[in-house]
């Protein structure tokens, strides 16, 4: 049985990971997944292989799926307004379909 839900995706630097997770948990998300990687943007180069010295500058993508679409949008808006007004990061929302709705 499929249910519609919202996927909140946050791309930022690893150094901000702990703070974001704290915000997500406070907002009531039930779980999240973190992916590490590299990339390039307006602010800084993020190589995934050539900078072994500073771990905190790696790119991370934090994803969480929420069955409550309104709450997901609130979280995304507050991240953009409060957290990413100054810090580098990208927040996006997508519609997804999940199977076990109780998990989200």
């Amino acid at each position, binding site marked *: 049985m499929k249910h519609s839900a919202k996927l909140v995706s946050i791309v930022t*630097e690893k*150094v*901000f990971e702990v703070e974001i997770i704290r915000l997500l948990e406070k907002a009531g998300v039930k779980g999240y997944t973190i992916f590490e990687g590299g990339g390039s943007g307006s*602010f*800084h*180069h993020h*190589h995934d*292989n*050539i*900078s*072994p*010295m*500073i*771990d*905190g*500058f790696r790119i991370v993508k934090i994803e969480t799926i929420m069955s409550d679409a309104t709450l997901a949008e609130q979280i995304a808006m507050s991240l953009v307004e*409060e957290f990413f*007004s*100054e*810090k*580098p990061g990208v927040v996006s929302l997508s519609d997804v379909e999940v199977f076990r709705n109780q998990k989200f």
Partner: protein
Amino acid sequence: MDLLASVFDLIITGLQKPTLGFLLGGMLIAALGSRLTIPDQVYKFIVFVLLMKVGLSGGMEIRNANLADLLLPAVFAVLIGVIIVLLGQLVLTRLPGIKPADALATAGLFGAVSASTFAAAMLHLDDVGMEYEAWVSALYPFMDIPALILAIVLARMANKKDPSKRNQKSVTVGYVIKDSLQGSALSALLLGLVLGLLTRPESVYDSFYEPMFRGLLSIMMLIMGIEAWQRLAELRRVAHWYAIYAVLAPIVHGLIAFGFGYVAHQVTGFSPGGVVLLSILAASSSDISGPPTLRAGIPSANPSAFIGASTSIGTPICIAIAIPLFTQLAIAVF
């Protein structure tokens, strides 16, 4: 001509030493586009062994040292860290094309300390046979943490004046202290100090940490050389003033610390080698633990500017020029 010849001689001897040789070798292979990399985990292990060795030797020496001797250099270390940040703010904010946040992050990074540069300086003093108090390593946090805190607090005050940014949340002083102490380099150093002080680590120190030190430091220098070259490309995209600052800062900061060290030498008999190490603590700029702390503390600052200045120019200048320079100065003065 004689003077020129002796300076040339000094440079050649310096280049043949493993520390500088490996650093330049790293820069060379990176410049040639080599795909040689040292795995992250190996690099982290090396930082751990180097700092543990420095901490252990310091801790073992503090056991027999008069702690009152440590007091004045520690106070001076705090003062030097503060002076470097204020001086950096004064100079950099007056230059064209430099944002206050970038200026403060750069000044903070140059006030903070590079553990590997410090280890290279200790090795250099061992090579030339100049004695120093091993507890000088305990001065590291006294310079590092105040410099980072001051840079972040000043940046926050500058932000408060800007009404559009007044409501932004920023990190607390407590966070900076905690984050610095929890960093890999300082954790290893402080643990080493405690273990050296409270336990009897001589057997592992003599059989493992001491013999490993030189070899691992050479690999560390290679990694720093590669990193320095790669960061240079980023530095080219920001104002050229960062490059000029990064060339001059290690020498100026080292000289300021040398002055303080000289006073400590006169007052408490701080050794000439200790004065050199205090100068190198000041001359060096953080490569590992400082950047993420500043990134979290001053997120509007451009990392290409502050890390580029520190890692690609500040550190090589410090290792190639400041270490031999202040050693020679100590030989001449004391």
